């Protein structure tokens, strides 16, 4: 399945957002997620199924003004 991960095309076998995070090594990382522009809480990632062309954002803390 091909999705858009952080703005770039990405091929994955993960079927849920939780699996995608784990496959990327983010299982225990300090990250937050959104799918198709809407926030998905960490506790809801397991129940969030991914479908073709989904737009997934995975973000982390960064410097800011």
């Amino acid at each position, binding site marked *: 399945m091909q999705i858009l991960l952080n703005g770039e095309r990405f091929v994955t076998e993960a079927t849920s957002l939780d699996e995608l995070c784990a496959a*990327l090594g983010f299982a225990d990382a300090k990250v*937050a997620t959104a799918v198709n522009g809407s926030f998905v809480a960490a506790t809801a990632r397991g129940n969030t199924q991914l479908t073709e062309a989904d737009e997934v954002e995975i973000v982390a803390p*960064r410097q800011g003004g």
Partner: protein
Amino acid sequence: MLELYGTRFTSRMLLGTAGYASPDILRQAVEASGAEIVTVSLRRESARARTGQGFWALIEQLGRRVLPNTAGCHTAKEPIATAQMARELFGTNWIKLEVIANDDTLQPDLFGLVEAAGVLCAEGFAVLPYTTEDMSAAERLIAAGCEVLMPWGSPIGSARGLANRSALQTLRAYFPDTPLIVDAGIGAPSHAAEAMEMGYDGVLLNTAVAKAGDPVKMAEGFASAIKAGRLAYEAGMIEPRDMASPSTPLAGTPFFKIDHAS
């Protein structure tokens, strides 16, 4: 003492964490500033670089309250999801709400700002909106539930200081009970002192410290200026006048002759 959303702070300086030459300089600058609130953001995380993980460790070391921003958001919808992600990531319901109208001036989109503020306040966020000195926007933001307003001094990173001083003065006079923080455009400690002398409750800055020749020394300079400006406001400044007024007593001046006094 500064009170924002029911929390009290000794320092009236809010410091950004971006643009420092190294994490160590950032850490030293935060310490020198005495700032109790530091702004942060969230950005896309790469599985390879994992940049955010290291930054999170640094934030934890700083031990300051973090104020996440929604920098870079352009629509009313983007900052909603960004704020929700920030709340989970940083474990705070505080959000510096930025909705940008124009990439050259980075001026706030007041329409998107008011809309997003309404949604976020209703969701229980403590919203600190980055706004302009516009009075009607200020009224709408307060009606939406914002307890703090953060008007710009001048465009972000421009170092021009208080570009519209009289409008900022009017805003201060019109909202005497709302904490007002000048956010953006500060270049010199004198700019920050000027805002504080006008009765502003605090100053939020980043670039002026981060890009200074010596950011640690500049952080201390700003802390002093903000403190000085606040003391001056509390003390009550004298009014300017057109003609000189001798500060040394005239009475008993040696060699005084009455015709000199006319």
